[in-house]
């Protein structure tokens, strides 16, 4: 892991690139897809709120990005890849 996204003096703002596969519990509703809970390194994180959603194209496939805040008020960025049908934990501001 290395800090890349953020580089300032504020530890709270320090983002670390993770890029590890995760398991995600999701909700499909009204044509939307929302992560509710995910498991990373054998630890379960409950999503408190989704603060951002966006999509990027990779050829004919899509990458669905989700910026989420967990109950512990930590920030995570999750990506769903429609080609591989895998979830990736892309980034977090969690220390350590």
């Amino acid at each position, binding site marked *: 892991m290395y800090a890349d996204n953020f580089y300032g003096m504020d530890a709270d703002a320090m983002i670390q690139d993770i890029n590890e596969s995760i398991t995600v519990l999701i909700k499909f509703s009204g044509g939307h897809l929302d992560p509710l809970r995910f498991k990373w390194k054998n630890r379960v994180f409950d999503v408190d709120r989704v603060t951002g959603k966006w999509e990027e194209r*990779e050829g004919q496939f899509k990458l669905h990005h989700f*910026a989420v805040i967990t109950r512990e008020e930590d*920030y995570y960025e999750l990506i769903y890849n429609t080609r591989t049908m895998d979830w990736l934990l892309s980034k977090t501001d969690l220390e350590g």
Partner: protein
Amino acid sequence: MLARGAHHKLSPGKTGAHKLIFHIDMDAFFASVEVMCRPKLKGKPVIVSGKPAARSVVAAASYAAREYGIRSGMSTVEAFRRCPHVIAVSGSPGQYIYVSLELLRIYKEHSTIVEPYSIDEAFVDMTGTECTWENCKDVAGEIKAKIRKRFGPNLTASIGIGPNKLIAKMCGSMDKPDGVTVIRPGEFGGVFNGLAVSRMWGIGAKTEIALNLMGVATIGDLANFPVAMLRRRFGITGEVLHLMACGQDDTPVTPYFEGMPVKSMGHEHTLPEDTWDIMEAEKVLLRLCDQVARRMRKKQYLGNVISMRLRFADFDSISRQRKIKYYTDEERTLYKVARGLLHQYWRPGQAIRLVGVNCTGLIKVREWHQVDLFMQREEDAYRKLLSAIDAIRDKFGEHAITRARLITHDASGDIDDVPLPPGLSSSPFDMLRYQDADDHIHTGGK
């Protein structure tokens, strides 16, 4: 002569006074989107930029960062000098585009005539809708409330309301952030006449100096300056300047679905380090030509004027162009011409900081495509190759296939993924202007 925005289509006598135009400008957009996603950043000095080592510039600064004198366009190094604890975020162009499109949906609920002016600005023509001069502030409040409901309290907009785009744009910046300013027909002079000419939309630094030298300091001075003298000094632009200073603008709000006419397509890239090596510059040029040609084919444009841009280490820039006899959308032709210009105009003693390529004289593919009959067989084979490459990229993404020449190796021997996909370059800055959305994407810093 005029800076961006001064493309007003003006004609004397037509004031557009009966129109009701909103200009909606998101406040510190990129930085605000980052704060929206990471509420911990709220109230902190945040900039969206590249890494200081990469000589990047600030694309957006939060209002807390602005208190330290940090502004968009400033080098990231300078931003850190002014505020050592500023938080620099590398940014997510895809996210900004997504939010921007969602914002357009909100505006469309109020009028079908919505013109995205940039990724964070739009004009909305409210003429003929339920919005009137009497209730326009309430309507602006409704739009703000919808934005707040959809994106939370950290994403705010400043709205300017006027009888034309010029006035709406100019008054939109008078009460930032999160403000609403209304200037009704006939009120322009009273509000703006005393302000410096530089406050007028589209007046750049050079025009301001030229006007100052003529004794024109304020917008009111310009409105009252003899048009004939302005015309003598600035040509046809002089008359436009006069009309603008009088608050006149007939430019229609062009609905997004009508599309903006694409006049050029180009890419620029600031090198990670200055280079004296023309081979290195050639490689960058080849990659840029590949990206430009790919986008031209995707959008079905052909062009016949190819220009090459260089910025040297001392920030001196040159741009040289050549017109070819036929229209093209092939990178080999773009590269051949651009490379020729590079060799002709580079300065061996000076390091190169930025390389750019641009194609103009654009026409739609269906309009005309002259093929050199003697080249037909080779042309067919090459077009098949391009079609195959495009098909692979369509399916697997822009990184999926590239020229061997553009592949480099890092210290460990691993292959670096060299080509930067359009719009997803190493740095999000400068990109993402809807008006030339797919026309110019700059990568790296200035």
